[in-house]
């Protein structure tokens, strides 16, 4: 009697069993991660540079994209100080951005395909994963004068624009 009851229980349980769906959506997402704040070296009295050969530290920013070909990275190097002593002369700025490290070997092509204009560099993020960009920035004080003593701060702009 007990066996019949047990068998009936199993049969009825299987009759009401249903598939339980698990739904998921993968959405495009760009995450901008400042990795290293740059430091200006002072190779000569009238020059500030983030190049390691000039005693500086290159700022590095990481971009994580979940899906390929959804975003482009647009990086602008400084064209002015956000904080500095009073400057009486003009400052000549140069800057560039390039690939520093990649999570996918194919991303090394980003450097080849980058578009540069003014102080801005654009990279098409065509591969999902993480890519680190480093920026070089140099400021030369006008008239070969030395920079006044004090603290100098500049800001790099790291944009991630949906395509």
């Amino acid at each position: 009697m007990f066996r019949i009851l047990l068998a009936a229980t199993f049969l009825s349980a299987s009759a009401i069993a249903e598939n339980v769906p698990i739904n998921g959506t993968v959405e495009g997402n760009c995450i901008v991660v400042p990795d290293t704040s740059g430091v200006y070296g002072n190779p000569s009295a009238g020059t500030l540079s983030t190049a390691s050969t000039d005693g500086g530290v290159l700022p590095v920013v990481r971009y994580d994209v979940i899906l390929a070909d959804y975003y482009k990275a647009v990086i602008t190097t400084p064209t002015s100080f956000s904080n500095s002593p009073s400057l009486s002369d003009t400052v000549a700025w140069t800057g560039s951005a390039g690939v520093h490290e990649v999570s996918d070997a194919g991303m090394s092509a980003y450097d080849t395909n980058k578009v540069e204009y003014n102080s801005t560099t654009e990279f098409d993020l065509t591969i999902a994963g993480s890519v680190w960009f480093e920026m070089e920035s140099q400021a030369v004080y006008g008239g070969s004068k030395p920079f006044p003593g004090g603290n100098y701060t500049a800001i790099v702009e790291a944009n991630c624009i949906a395509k």
Partner: protein
Amino acid sequence: MRNSILFLLILVSGYASAHSWTPTYPSFTTSHVEGVVKTTMTLWNKRPDVEYYAIDVTDTEGNPLTFAPFDKVYRVAYLQKETIDIFIRTQDLARVTYICSRSLFINSEQNAILSRICSKVQQ
């Protein structure tokens, strides 16, 4: 394989200092106010060095468009997510292209990286 593992580790380990703005392709729907449409964005602040974010809405050329709320600067604490409703006039719907969030530095005295993420409006 090694790169895939590296990427996964980065995703799993979390972000020491990150800024995220979603969805990538928002779309506007009708709101409770006639002549006004609405979309909802999410800002995620994992940047310990940033507490304020500015929002802007632009056309393709980057020209600003009027939107509400008029308070365009949000205080988002470290490790907090903020859901932000964006309202624009229906007449601007054909022009609106980007909705962006940008980190703000108040009295920054060290070299910094400003992060700005722009979502593209689905027409």
